[in-house]
């Protein structure tokens, strides 16, 4: 079992910490895991994305040309990655910021109004964790409890931790 996931969005949306938290949780569940952020000269505040590979065996490459899961936090990411998804894969869409539709029939699509949900929790910046919670519910990659615990290591600020943990659960319950 080897599962590749791409998280993509704007620079400010906390896409990378989605990936890191997932990776941390996977490690805590003793799985093999790699996390690879996108880096490059062209990345100047613009879009960001990262790839997380979770597996039971050694992982050959942290790169995912055709991932099983894609989480798109904004429209450009949807456009850029929609054709990369493995057929039969799952595409999570942040419907708060994305209107465009995907023109593929061979994949599952789930829409999560991540920003709205975050607003409801009156913590707009934790839309990413809402999305991550929803993702984990559907992907079943790690247990939501491990994920919640993982924030204790991936985040420093205690106050933020609780807020984000709520966000995770909210997303999880929504999906």
């Amino acid at each position, binding site marked *: 079992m080897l599962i590749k996931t791409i998280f993509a969005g704007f620079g400010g949306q906390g896409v990378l910490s989605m990936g890191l938290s997932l990776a941390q949780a996977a490690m805590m569940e003793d799985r093999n895991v790699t996390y690879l952020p996108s880096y490059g000269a062209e990345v100047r*505040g613009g879009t960001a994305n990262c790839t997380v590979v979770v597996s039971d065996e050694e992982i050959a490459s942290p790169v995912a040309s055709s991932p099983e899961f894609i989480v798109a936090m904004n429209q450009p990411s949807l456009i850029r990655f929609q054709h990369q998804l493995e057929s039969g894969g799952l595409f999570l869409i942040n419907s708060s910021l994305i209107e465009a539709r995907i023109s593929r029939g061979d994949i599952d699509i789930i829409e999560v109004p991540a920003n709205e949900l975050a607003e409801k929790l009156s913590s707009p910046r934790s839309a990413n964790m809402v999305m991550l919670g929803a993702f984990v519910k559907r992907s079943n990659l790690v247990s939501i409890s491990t994920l919640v615990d993982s924030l204790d290591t991936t985040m420093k600020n205690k106050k933020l931790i609780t807020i984000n943990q709520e966000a995770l659960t909210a997303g999880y319950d929504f999906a």
Partner: protein
Amino acid sequence: MMEKAYTRPRFLKRKTFHYCPGCGHSIVHRLLCELFDEMNIQDKAIGIPPPGCSVFAYDYLDVDMVESAHGRGAAVATGIKRAYPQAVVFTYQGDGDLAAIGTAETIHAANRGERITAIFINNAVYGMTGGQMAPTTLLTQKTTTTPYGRDDRIEGHPIRMSEIVALTRGSVYIERTAVNSPVNIRKTKKAIRRAFETQIEDLGFSLVEILSPCPTNWKMNPMESWQWVDSVMIQEFPLGVIKDTVRTTDAD
């Protein structure tokens, strides 16, 4: 009927800048393109952008351009100018590039009085590589390689490269400006024009140091960064003409 009061310069290629919101680089790019047109030197200009956030400058400036190794802009410019003196040769260098690894190349090109112009973008950090300390980083300023703030006992004081270059007798025009307000932007354009003129008049080495906001690595929003240039940077790097051997007599 309405006439155009401002429109995109013709020698600025039509492409969205890759720079961060509020970055000063693209402003300087625009000024250069306006000058290529106004001074009508577009067909003589050869630009040298070394690595740095502006490594892709050739995607925007519609003149001949050649990439240079990090810090070697002044040497490359020397080679071009010696081989083809008719050209108007300029480097476009960051503070890491010109004031750290390029220190020797810059000072000696200036000392030889090479007829070239250095556009020196001082944003007090290494932008492209992610906000490390630059020689121009201010005291107590936090960067990714001075996480505890720059300490003069360990990392030394910010270096005033323009003043150093001014000591060489081959340098003829040196001015420090900024691109953080309408008036400073206008002055910057005047300075660059003057620098190009001294080159064309075969007088010697010219350099324009431009204080330029880097909101991303300063961890500020654009307007905060534009104001920080006034409130902090200019205290350490005062604006104005540092050397003009043509107007005044030799400064050193």
